[in-house]
């Protein structure tokens, strides 16, 4: 049976970075509840990363993500001077020197990926969502998070991709193939929303329309979280849902504000890992200063 929720796992090495000439090599490992990301940076430049599904064991997932990021680069784990673990499973990164919360890492990562004008980061992850306000240095000034309920998270979207037999990467595009925008799914709870969707399909709704109704419900839910903390521009979205334009466009419509477009150099899922690797670099530099 095809698993429609299964998003593509991949790794990437940035061309033209000669790590052997680098002075400071650091890494951030972001073990989320759904995906694990390992990011390697050389002198504060993105060098390689991997994004994969988190398995039943966090330490294994961290190890596999790290191994995969290193694969084919000639770099070994020992070559990395400092590794920071972050995310839901951050305490389970055996080879990390220390951990930093994913809130701090996402803000720091977004600051790097989009620049110092970023003031609001919406991280839409697999099992939680966080609205983060930050300053020009990427330092967190306030945040709100929902980690109790699947509504508004990637897991909720996976449930719908499965239900409607639509590959998860295609959900966003398909959700716009409707004559007019339907009312959002009314149930907040993903379990009840699923029953509601089954009812709509029985009524003869095409699946594109059901997807539109769910994307819009999710956007509304995220909007409510953001409205509580307030949105200041520049606004950016990180996490896997950032790639789902069905949710992103509808959220922008609710907010009346556009998110900065995804920078093709950086996958929005690795913001936390980048932030962690940058914190690691800062700690290496601090260590060197103290030694002197």
């Amino acid at each position, binding site marked *: 049976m095809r698993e429609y929720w299964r998003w593509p796992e991949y790794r990437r090495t940035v061309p033209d970075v000669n790590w052997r000439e680098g002075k400071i090599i650091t890494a951030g490992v972001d073990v989320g*509840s759904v995906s694990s990301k390992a990011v390697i940076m050389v002198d504060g430049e993105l060098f390689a990363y991997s994004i994969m599904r988190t398995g039943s064991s966090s330490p294994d997932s961290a190890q596999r993500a790290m191994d995969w990021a290193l694969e084919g680069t000639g770099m070994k784990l020992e070559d990395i001077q400092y590794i920071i673990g972050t995310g839901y499973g951050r305490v389970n990164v055996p080879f990390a020197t220390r951990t930093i919360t994913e809130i701090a890492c996402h803000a720091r990562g977004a600051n790097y990926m989009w620049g110092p004008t970023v003031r609001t980061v919406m991280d839409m992850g697999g099992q939680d969502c966080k609205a983060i306000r930050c300053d020009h240095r990427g330092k967190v000034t306030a945040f709100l998070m929902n980690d*109790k*309920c*699947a509504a508004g998270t990637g*897991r909720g979207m996976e449930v719908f991709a499965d239900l409607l037999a639509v590959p998860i990467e295609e959900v966003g595009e398909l959700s716009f193939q409707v004559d007019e925008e339907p009312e959002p799914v009314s*149930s907040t*709870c*993903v*379990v009840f929303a699923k029953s509601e969707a089954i009812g709509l399909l029985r009524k003869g709704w095409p699946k594109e329309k059901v997807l539109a109704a769910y994307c819009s419900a999710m956007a509304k839910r995220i909007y409510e979280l953001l409205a509580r903390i307030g949105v200041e521009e520049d606004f950016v979205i990180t996490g896997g849902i950032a790639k789902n334009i069905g949710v992103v466009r509808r959220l922008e419509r609710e907010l009346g504000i556009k998110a900065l477009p995804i920078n093709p150099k950086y996958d929005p899922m690795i913001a936390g890992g980048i932030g962690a690797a940058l914190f690691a670099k800062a700690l290496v530099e601090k260590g060197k200063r103290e030694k002197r």
Partner: protein
Amino acid sequence: MPTLLKEEREVITAGIDVGAKTVKVVILKDGQILSRAKVLVGFDQRTSAEGAFDEALRLAGLSSEEIEHVTATGVGRKEVPFAETDITEVGAAAKGATFLFPSARTIIDVGAEEGRAVKCDETGKIKDFAINEKCAAGAGAFVEAMSRALEIKLEEMGEISLLSKKAVPMNAQCTVFAESEVVSLIHAKTPKEDIARAIHDAIASRIASMVRRVGVEREVALIGGVAKNIGFVDSLRRSLGVDLLVPDEPEFVCALGAALVAREER
């Protein structure tokens, strides 16, 4: 059951409870239950309501003309064209439970997609209530989803969980997240009975906090389909620290309450 006044003899009424998952019908004569019927809610609530009603009539050996008054309750109570009146689930729960247990002051009703706590006085009048209809984690849907993840039949969940000797904590509140947690527990070779108990403890703690919002006044009655799950009953008893009155056919109590209301409203 309490006896009724002489002039109320020979009155036949019906209560129909159109729930999220099943439709329940009770036909009542002289305070005695003549028949009960239950059908799954299928394609639409109306057809299911008619099906359950016909089945209850057949079991009682009656025709629909012999029913003096029909009162509907449940989430689909407006979808019953042959009902003369309707009553809220809270009202029906209080009516039915206090008829069976006159000493009940707190009634907990846990259905497939909703949970309710009702506080009432000695006459069955409602003093306060709390409802969860927003989140599957505080309703039968939670246990159902978990039994699927655990690959144990829903009807067997209760007995299996009572075999547990060890309380395992469940961190996830959300049904969707709890499914993944159950799968992780299975991978970690946690005994199924311990997982089953963890599931019942989890839903019981959520129901208990809802009940505490209205206050726990004894006696406490537990009704609704989930009350058939002895593992859940045990967990809720421990969580609330009080004994629970559980009727034989807990999922028919709201339909019974509606049938009693039908008698008053005819």
